[in-house]
């Protein structure tokens, strides 16, 4: 068996009994342990996973009702699980155990999958490099001196190094797509409201969206649609029909109008990124798509808008971490105020504190109108940019996922602004709430992966996934694994 294969291929093999779930699970677990230097996993679910694998083999492979029976998956450690620790890569929650499991995770469990373990991330999903994990950084399997991106860096690296067939991530401003791009894998951020946020530890509630990270678009499609759909526990989840995303819409590329926003092809992006994305668009043109130049005029305000909105919500969402009921409580404190300040000072890392301070500031009386309210207005303009483009000009938008490929660990960690700019191409779709996918489209001169981003109108996941699958039918970028991944013989 070959754990490098896409999830959907493994499901077929499991179904035909060509491989067993135990075999598969053992391989992933042992490679996870062999590659511990990557810093991918914060905890492994070894015993329970093997037990579940044995049970799955006994019960028979995947079926229509249990399409994931026998499939292990990795979970970004920001989703609550009732077994094991849910840490958010924060000192504050290093021993926290949740009494309930996130809806998105539960839906995969219900489909027969089981957890391999919880993956590393930037603390509370705040970061673009995974250097903000309060435990240890994640290394990019394509070059271990480089970052895997963030905040779902552990999940991105897990797929790149084939330590899991699929991993869950969350995307607030690019936290699925940016690490997918930097790790050379496929990652989907669905429409806001598509997948329940219940059990997702909130960073910025109006932006957070769970999504799958995997080898192929088809893998992401299957996992995404299994998690999608209204959840009574999340009032912002939306009740809309979910089609079978893994079955691509036929001849999707014929006559497809691909919008290419001029604001995304700017001087700041590396030449390799520009070239490979351009080549990716041409690949789709060969299949019958039409290229349309479009403009998303408010793109330049997106990063500033995002850091106001996301930080405001984060400062509020993280207020509950006060050391009173659970999590880290500072010892030897005098009085309530000191208990709060010391617990929060000790429990949170510098980036989390920075965002709490920014968020508190922009919501403060006297500043609210100038920052938060203004940002909300700009957010509406950015949403309208997309609505207009999709209404008048194009069916999907194609652009780079990130301006650069993976950068060396430590290079940007002292310069938050440079770090924030890494999300410049992923943030607009987050602010607009529209679905977007990043898929591998080539390598730069250092053989570091480059991501092509496809953005669709709200609720059109099936469309962008079909285009992505058409692209992957013609290319094999997504099937390439880092050369220094231990071979299957190891």
């Amino acid at each position, binding site marked *: 068996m070959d754990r490098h294969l896409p999830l959907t291929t493994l499901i077929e093999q499991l179904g035909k009994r060509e491989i067993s779930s135990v075999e598969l699970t053992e391989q992933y677990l042992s490679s996870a342990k062999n590659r511990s230097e990557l810093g991918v996993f914060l905890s492994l679910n070894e015993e329970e996973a093997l037990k579940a694998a044995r049970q799955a083999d006994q019960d028979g492979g995947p079926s229509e009702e249990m399409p994931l029976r026998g499939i292990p998956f990795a979970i970004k450690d920001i*989703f*609550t699980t009732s077994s094991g620790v*849910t840490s*958010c890569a924060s000192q504050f*929650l290093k021993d*926290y155990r*949740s*009494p*309930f499991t*996130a809806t998105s995770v539960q839906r995969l469990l219900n489909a027969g999958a089981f957890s391999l373990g919880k993956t590393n991330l930037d603390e509370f999903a705040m970061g673009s490099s995974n250097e903000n994990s309060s435990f240890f950084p994640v290394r990019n399997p394509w070059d271990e001196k480089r970052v895997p991106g963030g905040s779902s860096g552990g999940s991105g690296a897990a797929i790149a190094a084939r330590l899991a067939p699929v991993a869950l991530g969350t995307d607030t401003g690019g936290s699925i797509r940016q690490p997918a791009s930097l790790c050379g894998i496929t990652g989907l951020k669905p429409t806001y409201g598509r997948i329940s*946020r*219940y*059990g*997702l*530890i*909130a960073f*910025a*509630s*109006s932006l957070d969206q769970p999504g799958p990270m995997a080898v192929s678009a088809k893998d992401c499609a299957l996992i995404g649609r299994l998690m999608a759909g209204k959840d*009574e*526990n*999340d*009032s*912002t989840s939306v009740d809309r029909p979910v089609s079978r995303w893994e079955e691509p819409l036929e001849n999707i590329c014929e006559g497809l109008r691909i919008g290419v926003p001029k604001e995304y092809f700017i001087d700041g992006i590396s030449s390799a990124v520009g070239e490979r994305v351009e080549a990716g668009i041409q690949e789709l043109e060969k299949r019958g798509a039409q290229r349309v130049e479009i403009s998303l005029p408010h793109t330049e305000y997106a990063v500033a808008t995002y850091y106001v909105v996301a930080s*405001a*919500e984060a*400062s*509020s969402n*993280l*207020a*509950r*971490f*006060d050391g*009173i*009921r*659970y999590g880290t409580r500072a010892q030897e404190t005098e009085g*309530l105020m000191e208990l*709060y300040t010391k617990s929060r000072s000790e429990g949170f890392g510098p980036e989390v504190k920075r965002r709490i301070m920014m968020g*508190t500031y922009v*919501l*403060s*009386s006297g500043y*609210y109108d100038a920052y*938060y309210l203004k940002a909300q207005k700009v957010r509406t303009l950015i949403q309208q940019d997309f609505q207009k483009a999709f209404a008048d000009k194009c069916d999907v938008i194609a652009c780079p996922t990130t301006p650069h490929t993976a950068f060396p660990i430590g290079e940007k960690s002292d310069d938050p602004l440079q770090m924030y700019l890494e999300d410049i191409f992923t943030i607009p779709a987050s602010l607009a709430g529209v679905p977007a996918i990043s898929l591998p489209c080539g390598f730069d001169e250092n053989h570091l992966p480059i991501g092509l981003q496809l953005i669709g109108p709200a609720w059109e996941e099936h469309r962008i996934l079909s285009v992505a699958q058409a692209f992957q039918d013609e290319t094999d970028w997504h099937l390439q694994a880092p050369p220094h991944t231990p071979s299957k013989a190891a």
Partner: protein
Amino acid sequence: MDYETVIGLEVHVQLSTESKIFSSASAAFGGDPNTHIDPLTFGLPGSLPVLNRKVAESAILLGLALNCEIRKFNRFARKHYFYPDLPKGYQISQYDEPICEHGRLKISTENVERVIGVTRIHMEEDAGKNIHDARTRSSLIDLNRAGVPLLEVVSEPDLRSPAEAGSYLKTLRQIVRYLGISDGNMEEGSLRCDANISLRPKGQLKFGTRTEVKNINSFKFVERALNYEIARQLSILKGGGQVIQETRLFDSANGSTHAMRSKEESADYRYFPDPDLPPLIVEESWIEKVRAGMPQLPEQLMEKLHSELGLSEYDAAVLTSEKEDVEYFLACYKVCRNAKASSNWVTSELFGLLKKEGLSITESPIAAADLGELIRLIDDGTISGKMAKELFEEAFSTSRSPKEIMEERGLQQISDEGELQAVIAEVLEANPGQLAEYLGGKEKLKGFFVGQIMKATKGSANPKKVTELLDRELNTRKSGDPQ
């Protein structure tokens, strides 16, 4: 210089819904500490609020009762502050878009009616409770109350005296109880009141500097706290000083208020729309549905009792002060169709015994329909008022129906004319001497005959009928004298 008092009240009405405002945990009062909780109540990471639509319905109901405009597009806002009884670090409330606005409430204080403006009503969640244990020098937290739904009702600064403030509060309590949305129990904290109070020279339009008095948690303290605060502000102003805008805490132990925090120290709550809750859209059809299901309010019922049923305004007011009382009265009236008698029996006999036994009207051992039946039996002459009273008392102490007791004892009054005529004839027959004396002009002997007749019937003769028939018989004998 004469000063005028200006008071505005902020009343928190705790709703009596089964579950909390944003989760399915029980909203019941009391319970062992931290038993009415769930992930959201505990502020656990990953938990999310889901609005209990009953809460919005209660808000609409109260809004309609107070003649408010109902907002169609509602948003919830987060109000931030750190306190151990606030698990999420923010309270979900409504900020600049409350569900109800521009209402009014008619109050009557010492027979003077006034209309008080209701600025707004908004929905929010309650906080938990901190308990400080002096013995172990520890602070304990009970989150049972955290997330219990509240409606905050804010009045215009239209109240002009502590007495008016008191009757505003009582009228509001009466309405929420009539609507069935809250038990209005101030002692259990179902109704909490903060007062904004200021003084201004009589005739001046501009308001004086106000203070906010918090922690008024009992009806009897409302007027006391306000009177104290008026006296305090008055002595400052008369001494040429200036009132400081601040929040003051009422101390029920000595009836005084003391400064809690000044305006400068007031917290910045950093309100912003809660991104976890989509806007609540109140459709016109929803409002109409709520309006259609609205129970009758005290004002309407008072009017009905007075104008339609002919009760005095005083009786109508007494009966409508509590919803359960007027419901009992109406159920009783429905059976006997005698409003005056129903009112008398309920307000004197029934209230008297209930008070003596320490029972509420809902715990009455006599059902309203049974009391109605009892009144009907008096009215059709089956029993006398005296018998009725005895039956009522016995029924009250045994929880049986008065009619059942009456039938069992054979206590029916004899009203049958033939039967009574026979008894009268017997009695006259048996006392020829007295009869002769009577016929000779000693008319006060009539009482003697009545007594003999009652004795012969063991008191069950209908006295009215007896008098009537006896008079007829004696008159016949007087004029015709067949003997």
